[in-house]
């Protein structure tokens, strides 16, 4: 017996960044540089990693869950990082 489930492909965009209580040293360096170069006094930078990727799933809801799992288990380290799904779109 063959069960056919129609799978859609979704493209997901996520940002992974340090939790608020972890010092973002890279950001502090950029802040300082912009200040010294007189470009911006209080840039208040935050840095993160951006990923865009596809998952195949039967619907939007389950795609979001799968993406969440990938973020948690593959892309981030929950000890120090948090993630945010910025967008999720059906790919035609």
């Amino acid at each position, binding site marked *: 017996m063959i069960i056919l489930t129609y799978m859609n492909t979704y493209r997901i965009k996520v940002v992974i960044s*340090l939790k608020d209580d972890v*010092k973002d*040293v*890279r950001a502090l*360096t950029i802040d300082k540089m912009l200040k010294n170069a007189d470009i911006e006094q209080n840039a208040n930078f935050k840095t993160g990693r951006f990923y865009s990727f596809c998952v195949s799933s039967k619907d939007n809801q389950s795609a979001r869950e799968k993406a969440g799992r990938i973020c948690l288990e*593959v892309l981030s*380290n929950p*000890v*120090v990082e948090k993630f945010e799904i910025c967008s999720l779109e059906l790919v035609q």
Partner: protein
Amino acid sequence: MKAAVVVFLGTNCEVETKAALEKYSFECDYVNSNTKALLGYDCVFLCGGFSYGDYIRSGRLAKFTPVVGALEEYIEKQRGVTVGICNGFQILCEAHLLKGALLENDSSRFICKNVELKLDFKNVSKKISLPIAHREGKYVFSASDYKEVFAMSFLKYVDNPNGSYLDIAGLYDKNRRVMGLMPHPERAMFAKNFGFDGEEIFKIVKEEIKRG
């Protein structure tokens, strides 16, 4: 005593780790990331390098390989001692086999140099000097783990080079069967300029294996 040195794609300190173990009279095998059979070894070394390019973050992609699954079993059964050096330490943290995580150094640059350390392990307490070579070696942990981590750290920087919390350079797990450290003891066993203090670490490993 038998030691396994795990070689992931991208690992690059396997040769000196094996040589150091052999100098300390271990019998040594390289095992690759597909190995599932670790139970025959008295200790397992995860050594330095850039497993899977350290793409995503250091040590992260290695945790999806079969050997890390096998390692979980090895640790679960408390078969022997697991040691993660540098990238190996990062892998152990990423796989949650040790507490905490390793972030980019405060300087955001790679640091290669010899550093002074304070070694405190059971009745041993002394200053030693070992080489470090890493870009993601800043050890951090969640506030809730403070007590535990504090108790389990055995190696601390005298002059913190990378921003590690509590100056921690190495720690073990609650059973003292898993050890992770950023400095490279295997590099301090051969040449005068790098010293010979690496032996201190191998000595501890050997004693912990004997303890059973």
